[in-house]
């Protein structure tokens, strides 16, 4: 998991011996992390690589040669000649003791606990526990399913007081909502009455909670984790490009969780991004192509709609010239799709009027970026910018109202409405002869359109996004699109062949990316394989950076 530094900044290393294995480590690095990085499993609860060291759970105790007592591995810095044993009888005894104490008051809730299946307490209980309870007094009662914040559910009985969540609100969000109240046996996590856990990153505490004490309200009692299929992807909520895992069950998204990438989001993601997947399976999703026939939109086959769109665009071009057609792209498209769309605009439609509609929103100094689309930078890199003598977005809207542009092809209509305003969008729609809208959700423009093409969401595509800082990252298709819907890149390919004639060249993201690497200077040297799971910075390959 550690990022390899450059050769010049590599510090002198120390040698430590863990379970007889000699390991080169950075001086002062936590022994626990060094062991984990080398595949030596030391059980732990309170230690988290992105939080300060607490040492409260006592689970990571190891035997260090020359020391009488066991030491906690998380708070032991690596020094030269450290000899460590993580498997001895004394260590096993200590772990069993810690497990017994942690389980004294832990309820036997596993069958109804969302954490079951990914619970550290459960795993370590099997691996290091004694499987027997020696206490006879009843377990301590506490708050159950308490809404500690609008998006987080708290179960006090399950808490083992590792204080990961407390440190998260102190160190990462610096909002300080969670505290440990009481002392000794009455200690418990809580919030001040007037301050619920309501920060934009609150659900991360459910991820870092090693037990089922803090849970995502959205995922509460939704699906057992062992039924989920996970797909590595990137959040589509804003331009930050947080790495995520999409958890799906029978082709339905169940949850999004952050995936560690120290160059982008560490191990965090914002609540808005995490919970913003509802549109993928929404009931009002556009699932069929529609064409306006005698003033009324009717459902037709995708191929018929594409033929109708091509015919309409051809007619406008024949009567008013190619300059009477404009294309508004979407920053939600992958790089591969943007590259294909730019090619269609240049070669088949032959219009210079091409731009992007990028919705803007709030941002903060941590992860949330103002551009509320994942791939605005990538789309511009791929050439979704006005051509020579072409209008930009405002210019296109003005030209439509002036009657110069007669046909408009919009990908992502809600973004356009948001950027130019609903009233302006209505005026634009009224002034057009042909309005082709390609989208996943209904909007004013889809209702006003001549032709509606069903698009696909990011969760249904594989390809790449380029984040605000120019990091190119792969996304993976986690679910298959609804029946009859194809990814947008495929639509561009089919429309191109409907416009120009000839066979349809299938849309293969990896192959298109190779064309991008050959055609866009900053992407030279990159490929889906090179990008891997964590992505690369555009232009980095040329400069020899990681």
């Amino acid at each position: 998991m550690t990022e390899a530094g450059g050769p010049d900044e590599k510090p002198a290393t120390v040698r430590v011996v863990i379970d007889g294995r000699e390991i080169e480590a950075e001086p002062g690095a936590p022994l626990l992390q060094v062991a984990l990085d080398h595949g030596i499993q030391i059980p732990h609860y309170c230690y988290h690589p992105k939080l300060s060291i607490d040492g409260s759970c006592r689970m990571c105790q190891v035997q260090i040669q020359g020391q009488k007592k066991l030491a906690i591995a998380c708070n032991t810095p690596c020094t030269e000649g450290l000899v460590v044993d993580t498997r001895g009888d004394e260590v096993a005894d200590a772990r069993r003791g810690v497990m017994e104490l942690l389980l004294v008051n832990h309820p036997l809730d596993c069958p109804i606990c969302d954490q079951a299946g990914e619970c550290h307490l459960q795993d370590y209980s099997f691996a290091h526990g004694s499987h027997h309870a020696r206490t006879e007094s009843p377990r301590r009662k506490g708050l159950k399913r308490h809404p500690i914040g609008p998006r987080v559910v708290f179960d006090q009985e399950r808490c083992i007081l590792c204080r990961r969540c407390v440190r998260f609100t102190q160190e990462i969000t610096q909002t300080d909502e969670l505290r440990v109240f009481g002392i000794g046996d009455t200690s418990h996590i809580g919030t001040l009455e007037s301050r619920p856990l309501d920060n934009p990153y609150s659900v991360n505490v459910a991820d870092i909670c090693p037990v089922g004490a803090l849970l995502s309200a959205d995922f509460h009692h939704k699906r057992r984790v062992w039924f989920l299929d996970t797909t590595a992807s990137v959040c589509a909520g804003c331009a930050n490009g947080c790495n995520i895992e999409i958890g799906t069950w029978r082709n339905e998204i169940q949850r999004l969780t952050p995936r560690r990438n120290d160059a982008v989001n560490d191990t965090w993601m914002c609540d808005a991004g995490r919970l913003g997947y509802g549109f993928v399976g929404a009931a009002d999703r556009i699932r069929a192509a529609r064409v306006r026939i005698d003033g009324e939109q009717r459902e037709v086959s995708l191929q018929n709609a594409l033929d109708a769109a091509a015919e309409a665009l051809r007619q406008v071009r024949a009567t008013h010239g190619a300059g009477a057609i404009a294309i508004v792209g979407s920053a939600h498209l992958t790089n591969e799709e943007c590259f294909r769309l730019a090619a269609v605009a240049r070669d088949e439609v032959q219009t210079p009027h091409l731009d992007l509609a990028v919705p803007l929103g709030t941002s903060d100094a941590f992860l949330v970026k103002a551009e509320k689309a994942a791939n605005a930078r990538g789309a511009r890199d791929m050439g979704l910018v006005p051509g020579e003598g072409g209008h930009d977005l405002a210019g296109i809207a003005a030209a439509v109202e002036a009657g110069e542009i007669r046909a408009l092809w919009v990908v992502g209509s809600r973004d356009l409405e948001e950027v130019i305003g609903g009233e302006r969008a209505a005026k634009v729609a009224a002034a057009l002869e042909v309005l082709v809208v390609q989208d996943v959700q209904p909007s004013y423009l889809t209702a006003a359109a001549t032709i509606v093409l069903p698009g696909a969401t990011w969760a249904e595509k594989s390809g790449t996004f380029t984040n605000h800082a120019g990091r190119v990252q792969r996304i993976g298709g986690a679910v298959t699109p609804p029946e009859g819907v194809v990814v947008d890149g495929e639509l561009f390919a089919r429309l191109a062949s409907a416009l120009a004639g000839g066979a349809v060249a299938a849309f293969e993201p990896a192959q298109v990316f190779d064309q991008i690497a050959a055609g866009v200077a900053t992407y030279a040297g990159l490929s889906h394989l090179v990008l891997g799971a964590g992505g690369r910075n555009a232009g980095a390959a040329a400069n020899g950076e990681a």
Partner: protein
Amino acid sequence: MAARVTQVDREAVRRSTGALGVAATLRGLRVTSRHFIRNLWGWMVGKPQVRTVMVPEEEDPKPAAFRGMPVLVALDSGKERCVACGLCEWACPVDCIHIEPGETVDEVERYPRVFDIDMGRCMYCGLCEEACPEEAIVMSARVDISAFSRAGLLWHKDQLLTPASQLARRLAYIREDYGRR
């Protein structure tokens, strides 16, 4: 019990069946008829020589170890004991169980909003019963599975719920059987 092994001379069998297997058919009919007449006679004189259960009017008693259709245990309140933990769904080798969990205001916060078993797929292996941490799904003695459509073979929660009193024998059996291990 020692296994009884009968050596069969395949050639001899083939020879004895003769043309079109007429002889074999007649031999079979003789066995069937003999049993039929003997049973009929026994029944007529009130001394039946074989045990006959008049299904479906009469119920065939099953041993406690018998695995029939899996059903859900209903508490006295009429609610299910199941908490929708999903372990039976996971254990099921033929994937015939479908559970949608939900949340209640009861003390145990989780319950199955939907609990479906596709009886057309179930193979009565009993792994669901063994996996269940709540003694909530047990193999009943019921085998009367029949329906006019495939959809009718999909049993929903209200059909599966069976009072615990009717399942007492099986519950005692599995407690002893699984508890022993």
